[in-house]
């Protein structure tokens, strides 16, 4: 997912406080920034919300790659509005993380020097216009699957950010599918592009949910804290079940020969993605890791004089105001 393999922190605190805290969560209460919380809860959330925010920001790049080449004015406007929303979502999430006592600039620096990660999916290239369709349809589709339940997460600011994000994101997947429909029903070349995009994005999309976590202790702690709402496998299954009929409607073939309907479980059996590739991408060896981080570093470094300049002006102005009073 946008936050993959977030390690949750073990907690050693006053058992009584911990029990009260857990009882509040179990009762469905929201935890607010100034409430007492275990240090591990705070740390895990900073890591998870931070990673989620970074994913939105780096996630601007693969789609931003096509804004200047969008085929019509309307497609250009829609894509631009969509990528702009990603920036907004990153902004909301950073603000949620900031209520936990970490600043946005600190989080940014941790992304830029590699201490924090972002979702593996954004290290894949967007090569044709059909990729704009596939990203919206599959990547946003997978993200929504995770984000909808996270609206009920226990941490108030995170939950509120998710509610806002889900409300805005509802158009993202639809615009992607809309592009796919045009492409799949277009000229033979367009159809080929559509199939090619599905071929390249299918397994990376499945990887978004992270490796199977049924044995993970961290995952159990995060689920008890309600900062993770479902297991990776549950969400992945749900995603496949939802997506396969949509691919069929487009007349496209999911690139998985083993894909079969399993009547007994009421879902599809499907091939696992190549987890070796996943770990390589996480380690920095994806097709675009270098470019993505370089682009974010450049934006940050080139922007320093702007941030400093506007702040210096604001400070001068407030000094002048004080002097005038």
């Amino acid at each position, binding site marked *: 997912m946008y936050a993959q393999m977030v390690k949750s922190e073990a907690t050693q605190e006053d058992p009584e406080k911990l029990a009260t805290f857990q009882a509040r969560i179990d009762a469905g209460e929201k935890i607010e920034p100034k409430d007492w919380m275990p240090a591990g809860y705070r740390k895990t959330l900073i890591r998870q919300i931070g990673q989620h925010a970074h994913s939105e*920001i780096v996630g*601007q*790049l693969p789609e*931003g790659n096509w*804004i*200047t*080449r*969008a*085929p*019509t*004015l*309307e*497609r*250009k*406007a829609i894509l*631009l*509005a969509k*990528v*702009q929303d990603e*920036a*907004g979502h*990153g*902004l909301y999430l*950073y603000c949620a993380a900031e209520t936990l006592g970490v600043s946005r600039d600190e989080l940014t620096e941790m992304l830029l020097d590699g201490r924090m990660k972002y979702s593996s999916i954004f290290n894949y290239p967007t090569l044709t*216009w059909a990729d704009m369709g596939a990203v919206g349809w599959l990547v946003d589709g997978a993200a929504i699957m995770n984000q909808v339940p996270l609206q009920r997460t226990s941490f108030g600011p995170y939950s509120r950010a998710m509610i806002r994000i889900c409300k805005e994101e509802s158009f993202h997947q639809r615009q992607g599918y809309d*592009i796919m429909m*045009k492409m799949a029903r*277009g*000229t033979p*070349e*367009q159809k080929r592009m559509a199939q090619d995009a599905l071929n390249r994005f299918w397994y990376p999309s499945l990887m978004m949910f992270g490796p199977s976590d049924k044995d993970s202790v961290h995952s159990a702690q995060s689920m008890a804290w309600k900062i993770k709402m479902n297991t990776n496998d549950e969400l992945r299954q749900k995603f496949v079940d939802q997506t396969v009929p949509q691919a069929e409607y487009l007349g496209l073939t999911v690139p998985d020969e083993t894909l079969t309907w399993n009547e007994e479980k009421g879902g599809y059996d499907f091939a696992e993605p190549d987890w070796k590739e996943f770990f390589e991408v996480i380690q920095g060896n994806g097709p675009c890791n270098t470019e993505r981080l370089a*682009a974010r570093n*450049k*934006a*940050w470094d*080139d*922007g*320093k*004089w*702007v*941030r*400093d*300049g*506007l*702040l*210096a*002006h*604001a400070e*001068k102005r407030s000094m002048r105001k004080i002097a005038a009073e």
Partner: protein
Amino acid sequence: MSDDALFEFLCRMGDNTLVLGHRVSEWCGHAPVLEEDIALANTALDLIGQTQMWLGLAGEIEGKGRSADDLAMRRDVWDFRNILLVEQPNGDFGQTMMRQFLFDLWHLEMLKALSGSSHDRVAAIAAKSVKEVQYHVERSGDTVIGLGDGTSESHRRMQAALDLLWPYVGEMFVPDHIDAQMSEAGIAPDPGELRATYDARLAEVMTEATLTIPDSGFAHKGGKSGMRHSEHLGHMLTQMQWLQRAYPDATW
């Protein structure tokens, strides 16, 4: 007033917003801070929307069945009628904001005048656009002031941006035979008449920004007439028009 002249005028308005909107959209994902990224995208979206209206009307007036997309995606450089200022590359963020402000200030005065156009459709497009551009000029003006009066580095960069772009300001105000026909028909103002307000407001902002307006009246020309664009425009079109050119039979 001929339909040809009106078509030409509408292309000028639409190509300005098309080309500048494209340039601003190039920033998406690369701006100095998230809030600016989002704000730049809003500006670009406004400009693209205005393009659809201006070029849409241009296509109707022309009467050859060309849509706004046809005009945007299927004309070559010599048929573009935008001023040279808007096709200049983004440069650093300061250069982008200076270009934006120099254009916005003219754009606002132009649209205000067009809101009272004798041509209802032109007046309607202008009335819708003027609200958007009012905000553009406030934002770009504030940013120019903030960076001009910021650190010594930001000041130096903003002065360099103004010096670089100043020779492209004059073209906005030089009238030609198309402008003459437009103002005679009451459709559009004589661009020369916008200069006094522009200069006054520009001087205010540059003073606050502690920047010096170059003491030169020289103006590059050739964009709005289409006679001689800069080399930059052609490269922009290779990106912007590529899909439409490579797959002419496709619908998107």
